[in-house]
């Protein structure tokens, strides 16, 4: 019986061999691909998935991560809310995804200040919705959430684990997970994996933006480089 202490890599290697995603038995393929798709698959495995208690968590089955992995990609590089109007709330969406194989979950934080403009020596930043609330027409404000909304329009989507919730577990964070309610605080966590669970698999996220303007919001072109930071804990 071999008992390993300290670091134990799920990937096996020595100076003479290396094996990634070791698979024993029939029904598994860690790299299925064609011109149009690529996938890892297993079949006939019992107890595939994650299990945990207060003191441990583990993955079983044929699909397990071979090393810490993290990926975050912005899928929509630009979102344009158009010309803001004192009589209607303007909306827009942008999407990104996080793919992770890690131990203790991940979060995504929004780091940017709201959209701003500068003209000469003057600049102005749209007022951020510091508390969760509904859009108010005629009041200058900027907010986001990460769920499907029906008001002020049908827009946005709930986080979408791929292909379903069995394989990924990203969620919209508190404050950003209430339909038709918006908020924006720079530095806030907008995405998280469930407490006590792992960040696992691929989840697609849609950011829903809203903006309103008042009668004396300074005219100009407003821009925000939306700085999103993923923080993974291993």
């Amino acid at each position, binding site marked *: 019986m071999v008992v390993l202490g300290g670091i134990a890599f799920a990937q096996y290697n020595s100076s003479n061999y290396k094996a990634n995603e070791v698979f024993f038995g029939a029904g598994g393929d860690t790299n299925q691909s064609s011109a149009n798709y690529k996938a890892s698959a297993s079949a006939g495995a019992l107890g595939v998935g994650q299990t945990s208690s207060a003191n441990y968590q583990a993955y079983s089955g044929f699909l397990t991560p071979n090393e810490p992995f993290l990926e975050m990609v912005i899928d929509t590089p630009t979102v344009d809310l158009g010309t803001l109007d004192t009589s209607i709330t303007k909306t827009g969406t942008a999407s990104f995804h996080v793919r992770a194989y890690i131990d203790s979950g991940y979060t995504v934080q929004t*780091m940017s200040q709201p959209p701003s403009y500068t003209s000469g020596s003057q600049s102005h930043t749209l007022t951020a919705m510091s508390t969760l609330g509904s859009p108010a027409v005629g009041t200058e404000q900027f907010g986001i959430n990460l769920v499907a909304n029906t008001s002020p329009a049908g827009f946005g989507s709930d986080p979408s684990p791929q292909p379903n919730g069995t394989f990924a577990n990203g969620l919209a964070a508190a404050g950003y997970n209430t339909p038709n309610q918006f908020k924006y605080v720079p530095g806030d966590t907008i995405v998280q994996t469930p407490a006590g669970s792992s960040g696992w698999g691929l989840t697609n996220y849609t950011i829903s933006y809203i903006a309103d303007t008042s009668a004396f919001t*300074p005219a100009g072109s407003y821009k925000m480089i939306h700085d999103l930071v993923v923080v993974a804990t291993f």
Partner: protein
Amino acid sequence: MKKRTGIRSKFYRLYLVAVAAVLIAAGAMPVFLSGHAAAYGQILNRSLNISSGVPGNTNVTYTFTFTLHDYTADTPPGSMSAVQSLKFVACTTAVGAYPGGTCTAPTGMDFTSGPAAFGSQTGWQGATNFAVDAVGVAGKCVPAANVLCAKRTDVTAQTATSRTISFTTVKNPTTANSAFYIGIYTFSDAGYATNVDFGATASAVVQTLTTNAAVAEVLQFCVGSTTVNDVDSSNPANLIANDCSGVSGTSVDIGTLDTSAINISPVSTNGGDNKNGVAMVRSNAGNGVVVAYDAIQQSGTNHLGTLRISGSSCDPGNTLTDSCINAAGAQTVFTPGTESFGMTVAGINSNGTTSYACQYGDTAQSLAAGNTCHMEPASGYVGQTTTGLDDFGTGNGFAWVENGTATNIASSAASTVKQVDDEALILKFAATPSITTPFGRYAAQTDFIAVPTY
């Protein structure tokens, strides 16, 4: 027993040799792996928080949070050691950051260009802070674009508790939508020699997500007349109009002039229409809006822009016998019977302002002097007292530029917030004749201009 001969026998011997080799390798494996595992403890609950995920951003702060391996919980229990030096190695893969891994540095990432500097630390045992080591130790930790060395002299034994350490002015990798991994190595000595713990963290820089919006330029500017002669915004009766759609009137009549008095609008006697002039402005110009006037040049000869009988011939200089009432020029206090014509901004009426509350001073109405509105009368057109002590009235006298030159009478450019919501300038006109001023119907015509700067 069955005897194997020839080729079958050779294959069987090879098979036995192979089996023996596998068994030998399997027997040796625990030695190799346990030796490797014993060299480092696993850092737990480790994460890397970067202050910006924008590719290539400089001045980024990298904050590492982690818990050291708990040797006291090992079997048999060990002891915790000091941590006096740290090595951070950034790679494109997690395995590359592992001890002995082949590391490819993330493109563009740079610990040295800033160069990275110690930011802060929390949760460490021992009072001495780490500092970035720009020299390092050859063969142990050599600073590079993807390698950061830090050290301190503090032999305090650590505990298996969470701690943080941050470094500022790091340059992010430049490849958009790419993850990078940073291995954290702890050493009990200050020379990167005795490695205690290791763990890899990850972060990512992502393609820039740009959110755009536009706010259209707004200007509503109107001029008219009003019977309102006050700026007390708490009195609803002082509402001139909610916005420009409610402003009307094209003239102000200050009645028949008399040498014994100064006719100051509103004049309700001797033919006066009891009205002031008003100029209301709404603008979302971020750099403010300026209101100016210019005297329309009427027909006749000389002094075409002052209060005059249209078409008449006036003297070149300021005489008291022609059909042109002498323009005040710069602001001056009139004397009854000394021919003069002028205008001033008596105050700012904000009863139509809804986006914010403001008040122009009116000490006669027990309103403190000063002006919290965004528009401010220009120097020379402040009706009473001075800027900052604004008071509704005309105590400073009147001014009038008769040659048609555009002259500023108010602006929001000096206000902290320069946008204006339906603030109304109350314009007071005044005139007095001399005893030789010819009788007749006198008029002055004025253009008003608003110039917003967006």
